[in-house]
């Protein structure tokens, strides 16, 4: 079970959180001007990397804040968590 550092509350057990998928997928502006391919890319395509993955988490049973985490999909190590709107730290940085 993960131990996750909520940027607002500190270290908590994974049971307090839910994962909301890949982070840094901005909703396009002027969606009506997008081609089907561009819209499908936003809607469906995810990176699914082996290694560092930026993902959104919700401290669901805590402060109810969404935040971002940099998690390694192989080792499950979360090397950093950061608030929404903050620049992601470079990958793998402790």
């Amino acid at each position, binding site marked *: 079970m*993960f131990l996750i550092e909520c940027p607002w509350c500190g270290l908590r*057990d994974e049971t307090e959180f839910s994962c909301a998928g890949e982070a840094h997928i901005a*909703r396009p502006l002027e969606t*009506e001007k997008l081609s089907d391919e561009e*819209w499908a890319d936003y*809607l469906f395509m995810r990176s699914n990397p082996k290694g560092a993955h930026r993902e959104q988490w919700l401290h669901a049973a805590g402060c*109810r804040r*969404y935040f971002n985490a940099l998690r390694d999909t192989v*080792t499950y190590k979360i090397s950093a968590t950061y608030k*929404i709107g903050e620049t992601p730290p470079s990958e793998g940085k402790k």
Partner: protein
Amino acid sequence: MSQRFRTAQGGRVDREREIQFTFNGKSYTGLAGDTLCSALLANGVHMIGRSWKYHRPRGVMSAGSEEPNAIFQVEKGNRTIPNARGTQVELYDQLDASSVNCWPSLDLDLLSINSKFSRLMPAGFYYKTFMWPQSMWMKYEHFIRKASGLGESPRELDPDRYEHTHAHCDVLVGGGGVAGLSAALAAGRAGARVIIADEQSEFGGLTLASKARIDDGEASQWIENAVAELQQMPEVTLLPRSTVFGYHDYNFLTINQRLSDHLPLAERPASREKLWQVRAQQVVLATGAAERPLIFANNDRPGIMLASAASIYSNRYAVQPGSRAVVFTNNDSAYQSALDLKAAGVEVEAVVDARAGSDSELANTVRSAGIQVINGSVVIDTAGRKRLSSVQVMRLSAEGSSVSGETRALSCDLLAVSGGWSPVVHLNAQSGAKPVWDEANAMFRPGEPTQAQFSAGGANGTLDLAGCLQEGAAAGNQAAIACGFEASTQPARAEPIDSQAILPLWLLPSPYTPGRGPKAFVDMQNDVGAADIALAVREGFKSVEHVKRYTAMGFGTDQGKLGNINGMGILAASMGQSIAATGTTTYRPNYTPVSFGAFAGQNLGDRLFDPVRKTAMHAWHEENGALFEDVGQWKRPWYYPKDGEDLQQAIDRECLAVRDSVGILDASTLGKIEIRGKDSARFLEMIYTNNWMKLEVGKGRYGFMLGEDGMVMDDGVTIRLAEDHFFMHTTTGGAAGVLAWMERWLQTEWPEMEVFLTSVTDHWATAAVVGPKSRAVVSAVCDGIDFSAQAFPFMASKTGTIGDVECRVNRISFSGELAYEVNIPANHGRFMWEKLMQAGAAFNITPYGTETMHVLRAEKGYVIVGQDTDGSVTVDDLGLNWALSKTKDDFIGKRSLSRPDTVRKDRKQLVGLLTEDPQTVIPEGAQLVDDPKAPTPVPMIGHVSSSYYSACCGHSIAMALVKGGRDRMGDTVYASLAGGRVIEATITESVFYDKEGAKADV
């Protein structure tokens, strides 16, 4: 006296305390401190079970958790334990044990006939033989289960209590042998918070059976002192009888503590087991090493056991594990067993050493004790039916690949075998590390840790006492330092042991033609022989994981602890590659089996962790005979049967009462979210498909929420309470998801919006008063509100009072009737409800539940999100395009409404169905076809989403999603049911009652 094989002195058993127990119905005597196996051996009972496939006689192989054979059914009735390892079952008074897997009895096992046909039952036998015809599998399975079953699971409710506990510590030490104790001492002395757990009843591990010395005293005295010191430390928790069975991410480990299994049944406390969930900063793995057997023909007879087990039974349990012993080894450690057996009064016939010769100090001590050492030789076969009677020995060629010369028979009833040692790397591997093969020492060592973890002692491949003490202390120091303490404990001292290299041997050479000789067992619990592994390789299985599953090697209650490393060695040899290249199977929790009770803990029956939510009027519903339905976590009244009514009769009555007069529904469970802030309207514009900017204060609007994929996600009415204040209703089941969904958009995408969300579902009790007489009822109850049609139109919202409590009334209808939803702070819910019931009495106000609510809305063709939609349905599919704004630039899901998939012409569309026979109700979920007689597979054109008998219409009605359905009005379709039954129906529009909507407009 019994216990003929009890030695005259020594051991850690209490000779003053005799204990009576029964095995297979026969009574025996043992001593306090015995395990079930040591007590049986003390009584000369060696054959304790039969193997699962060939039903061969089997005896005690080990003295620990790796035991494959000596598994028992312990106790009967509601406390019965299947497959308990007799090597770890502590003896208690009146213990009742029986063999598993023999029929009708241990001595006369009719299924041992399987043994005669073993050549016909190779690896994959069941896969090959019982695959076809498929319809026969149920019959085969019945027979196979009976023939091959291990223990029997209990059939009665477990009377015991199980507990869960959470703990945090600086250092968790897994394993309480001398390495673990040294680590705990070092960390504990530094001031760290330590938990040390060991699966045995006593700390000390293998050293409990050793006559070695530590710090100039007996090893057992050092252990006693160490435990006493640890017990004095307030920050140290000692957990005996506790197995660290799981090592998960972020140093989260699980421990199963057995509190009462060692006590007589009558003396057991309430709690049987405690499951510890521990988060540790640092972990020290001191789980020791386990000896391996050697693999030769007929290596499974009762009387053949591990050399270390022979030492443990001799030294710790004061039992002679035989009368005349042969020791067979490829390494030095078993020489100690020869000395231990001799000291216990066992005649040692010979030590057979596969190596050319060892002149280590230990080997020389054995020779000078007058024990014959036969070098450069191996055991090639054994004899004896229910007990070993002799072994055959041949010379091993210099390169170790063949045997030659005379066969020499050695008479013995005990063969103590050592094929080397395997560090117990299970927890290290579970934690994410990959064990590393050490060719020189023929063992897998723990891999590079991926978590904050140290391995020490036997678990780290260090097999001598001095090394275990050193590594334990060093690991304890380092773990404490990593937690921020100062630690510098010096290790205890022990004599170093000089030992000579092991000769790695996997499948021993034999004089038999390959595959034709007697079976040489690798995995005894699953009856997997060396030839089975070779066969799997010949049949094309190359991966160790596949070979495991094809042969069943490593399955069962022991999970291959004894045989797996040998199996991997044989597999590597069969494939002509190294063991390093072959690798191990995956080590997964649990290290040893854990009872289901331990996992369930107190979450039993109706005490589940999932909460039950009840509305403020719940007690009233109960008092008035409601039956309840679970909707998410909520208990909602389902219907209120009267005078022996069945479901349909009650619904018919409730529906007609609503349509003719007035009914009342508890609608408190609908999700309620308050939305405040200056950007609230702008936010709703994005969340809902319709327009919100111009909604008047005091008015509500029905809206759909879509996912970004354009599919309907939730629906409900939202009311504008002020310019910057809205009150949203969601579906009962969707409330939590909708809140999280909206929070996500606000926090991640539109942080600039000033909008605040508050869940108020539980703050309000809601009664829906529904029917032509509803206005009269609410007018009589609610003060300060003008309920006239002009003053209070449809979709309006007003505040007033009931007594002196403020209430809010919304004119909303989910039935097509004139209806009001009356909201009051939840604590006053029952007060409000009873007021409405009193006022409605004149009109025979009728409480109704979810079932009638469903029928009423279906009569009007209103959809329920999650019933008539399933995440693949658009607003257009529902025929509700009026709810889609034509003027907004954007809302969530808008762009998806013009995706190629959402504009397909053959999408399933919501329609009504009227059955040919008005009384027949189509089952919900039924598939629809155009032609039930078409050849299979019959093309399916849709499915029924809602279906009821409508008393108001006098007809069965249904809603269905049908491909291109809106263009097919009047067509006949067929609901195709299991068993070939077909129901004919006609496609209609989905509004069945009051099509003009006149009833709500009054």
